[in-house]
């Protein structure tokens, strides 16, 4: 297993790292880049805690080989806040609604909610529930999570 040089953009910054063919993108993000906001949940693509955006689309970092990141733009939960640390409106909505219990699913939920709002501004409750259905919260705080996505969508629409 020879190491490979892989170049990608991580939260807007160009990166070049050395990875093995069997390195998962999730482990590169957490262990090498020390960005531990992205969570290692089930490891088999069923819980959504490891969701990151690749080229603007949410995918599961636990099922992506790091080599596949070559040339792509990756955004993690740490990359959502704007310059100066201003939170994304969706992060604000999670705080306002108390949409966090244990917090383990929260990064995945926010990355999914953000992707939905980018695709579908002002989604309905049904659209939110459908889009988030691959992201599991075992505290079952879904009501406030769903409400947060709806609220952030409404707030962003009002601001436009």
């Amino acid at each position: 297993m020879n190491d490979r040089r892989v170049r990608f953009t991580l939260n807007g910054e160009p990166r070049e790292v050395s990875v093995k063919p069997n390195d998962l993108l999730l482990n590169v993000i957490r262990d090498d880049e020390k960005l531990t906001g992205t969570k290692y949940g089930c490891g088999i693509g069923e819980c959504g805690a490891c969701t990151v955006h690749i080229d603007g689309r949410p995918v599961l970092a636990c099922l992506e080989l790091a080599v596949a990141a070559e040339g792509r733009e990756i955004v993690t939960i740490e990359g959502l806040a704007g310059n100066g640390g201003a939170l994304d409106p969706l992060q604000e909505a999670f705080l306002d609604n108390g949409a966090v219990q244990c917090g383990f699913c929260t990064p995945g939920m926010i990355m999914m909610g953000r992707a939905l709002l980018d695709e579908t501004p002002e989604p309905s409750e049904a659209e939110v529930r459908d889009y988030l259905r691959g992201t599991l919260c075992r505290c079952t705080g879904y009501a406030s999570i769903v409400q947060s996505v709806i609220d952030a969508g409404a707030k962003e629409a009002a601001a436009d």
Partner: protein
Amino acid sequence: MYAEFDLLTPAAVGGALDELAKVENEEDCMPLGGGTNLVVDLRARAVAPKVLISVGRLSGLRGIELGEGRVSMGGAVTVSEILRHPERSRFGPALIGAAQVFAGQMVRNTATIAGNICCGSPAADLVPPLLALDAVVRLECSAGSRELPLADYFTGYKSSVRKPNELLTRVWWPEPPAGSASLFYKLARRKGDAITVVGVAVSLARENGICTRARIALGAVAPVVERVRPAEAMLEGNALEPDLIEAAARAAAQQSSPIDDVRASGKYRRQQVFVLVRRLLSRAWRSLSEGDHP
């Protein structure tokens, strides 16, 4: 990940086929598409190839083409790309229905149409609608290519006619004509990210009040996803009266050979084959009848 393998990243389909041509043992080398099944299997050591050939982003395997009466998709087209395509209404409603209930959003963004076929799972959700639409698959190797009906592709549980040096590069089917209808239903324990308990796809064509073409395909109730040809034959050439639909649904349930597992008993699955085939045939036929008498 503890599983070790080498990963080849050819720049084009030809390079991937050249690498596959060197394969001697099927277990030693596998093409990697989206990886949503294969990476899980690698981690579980369910498979242990020495070499993976990454093909999921090859431009030669991407793209959806419409024309000459065909819908044609490259093997690496993702489920999301099917759902986002501006001409998706021409693909066949059964396929769109299956894509909509396929896993979750993140898996749909990565999983490919060829990967869903090649993993060989009897619960693969794109396969019943593709069978109902008379899909054809293209297998390519460095020496040439061949095409065969998807209905002839599977030979048994997770086994197929694909040779170790062949790549499934394209899937195409006749564009569903006016006067035809197709539907898919996935029965599962919950809506999100659930493995199918029973999957049913039907496709019907109607002319002058007569069913001219019928397809019924069942998922997760036999070692392979399969068509129910005896039931299809009962329908073709007839007006689909409720008694006939019920008889066809009974024939479908009879042909199914479901197992008991953690998701459902075989008995329940077989009963649901009857219920769902009857329901989907009735709905599809009714939608065509309404089309005849606007």
